[in-house]
């Protein structure tokens, strides 16, 4: 079985998100970067599925040259092949991103045949456009469902579970198929020392795409207005317990 996972490199901000002076990007000068969480789980799911059914995992990212870091991370947790679609800009709009990825997937598939399964994150952690996986699936003519928190493969069918209020829905997609997965589908492993060493030697294929911009253009990023009020300190250590319980009583929660 051949599985492709499309991942995005995103900054990992802490207590607040700062924006660059021109307003066009998250100020990442003092930040680390990570794989967007849904996609980190997608990589783990792919590695587990080929562990169970045999096969190979390819990971693709559209991003700056530095996104090679996220491809190498995927290598360190068990992915096999890597494709970088390099961009110079901070971000491409969703239409442009999807068109470039569909093109790059076409390149790999015309050489090696169709992927049985393509996994996307449900939405990227930063831009959160909620559409790239659907657009790529439509361009490739494959069935796609989002919000997936469980997958089983049998007899050429991907049986996928989607969490809804108080339970889940099951979808049976004939492969080749595309899924948008969510964090919680699994608990991603940490890289082993051996994995880390192997990832250094992983070969990254670079596939530059030239695609027209879409209809959505960023004007600026800004933080929402927040009303921060003074914190009432109820006390220090266990001596604060009566004050806490007074508060709970006041809120009518102790009945």
């Amino acid at each position, binding site marked *: 079985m051949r599985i492709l996972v499309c991942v995005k490199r995103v900054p990992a901000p802490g207590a607040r998100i700062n924006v660059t002076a021109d307003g066009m990007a998250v100020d990442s000068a003092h930040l680390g970067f990570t794989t967007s969480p849904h996609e980190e789980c997608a990589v783990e799911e792919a590695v587990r599925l080929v562990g169970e059914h045999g096969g190979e995992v390819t990971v693709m990212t559209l991003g700056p040259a530095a996104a090679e870091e996220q491809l190498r991370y995927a290598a360190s947790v068990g992915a096999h092949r890597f494709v970088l679609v390099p961009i110079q800009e901070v971000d491409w709009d969703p239409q442009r991103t999807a068109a470039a990825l569909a093109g790059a997937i076409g390149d790999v598939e015309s050489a090696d045949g169709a992927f049985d399964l393509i996994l996307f994150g449900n939405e990227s952690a930063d831009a959160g*456009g909620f559409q790239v996986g659907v657009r790529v699936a439509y361009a490739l003519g494959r069935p796609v469902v989002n919000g997936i928190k469980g997958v089983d493969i049998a007899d050429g069918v991907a049986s996928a579970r989607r969490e809804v209020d*108080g339970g889940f829905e099951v979808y049976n997609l004939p492969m080749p198929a595309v899924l948008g997965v969510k964090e919680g589908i699994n608990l991603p492993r940490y890289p082993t020392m051996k994995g880390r060493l192997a990832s250094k030697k992983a070969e990254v294929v670079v596939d530059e795409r030239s695609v027209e911009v879409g209809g959505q253009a*960023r004007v600026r990023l800004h933080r929402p207005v927040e009303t921060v009020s003074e*914190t009432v300190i109820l006390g*220090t250590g*266990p001596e604060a317990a*009566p004050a*806490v319980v007074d508060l*709970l009583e006041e809120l009518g*929660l102790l009945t």
Partner: protein
Amino acid sequence: MSLLVICDHDRGKLAEASLEALAFGRSLATSAGLDMEAVVVGEGAESAAVDLAAHGASTVHVASHELLTDFGPEAWGETVTQLVRSSGAEVVLACGTDRGNEVVAHVAARLDQPFVANCRSVEPDAGDWTITRVQWGGSLLEDVSLTAEVVLVTVAHHAVEPSVAAAPAAGVVAAFRPDLDASLAHTVVADRVVLTRGVTLSTAPVVVGGGRGVGSAEAFGPLEELAGLLGGVVGCSRAVTNNGWRPHSDQVGQTGTRIAPDIYIASGISGAIQHWVGAMAAKNILAINTDSEANMVARAGHAVIGDLHQVIPAIIEEIRRRRG
């Protein structure tokens, strides 16, 4: 020229999220000089028509087809696409729920048009559109300009209050039968599994949250106990789920659950922005942290500075004492 709102319902009862989309749609239709219409799909859709009129829909398109009896993102997306083509809708709007965003993404792919997800405001602007949307699950806003033949947007969930129209609209029911390829059955819900649970994290009146500061899976015992005493549930940070101390279904935040309890007791949680967006709808927040400078302490209404392993047992004891 019309604006089409995609509405979700349960056997004819409109979803809360759709009421938000209709409220947003009414004001957008007014500012853009458009007529607001609605589309409903699935069994029992006709009975939503009266409500839709009250919420301002001049025409209610009721789509029916064998492939639309249960949810299927592709069948729904294809249906709305065909309706947009035949009705000539200029703007298509849904609420930014999982379903709403998914269905509009399908419409966008089919029409080859941009799709702007989770908007806070959408304004016509000299032939183009000026939009503010949310990024990072609500921690950051992005202003975008949109150039499109058909404007496809979702409104961020909980960004607007539902409201009825000042005067009800005609709500003329128009049957719509899409032409759907049998292959779209591939992504229609094949089965449903109901996990009956009591209070859930998203609806609990009290959430006792634990972060890395709790230290281990076992150390959540007192948090469970406190939650039990208050009729609430335990929540946690991503540091906790990543350590395997709690299941992901307990995670509060951008990639977890959004909570809105009467009180959120956040212990041993630093208050990273991705955690905060999931917790900020709580009516009251009590932070318990050894670090008085922690972001959670700064943002909370109340705080106790101290070791949660001492503070939480003391709270439990005090509750027991008062209850006698």
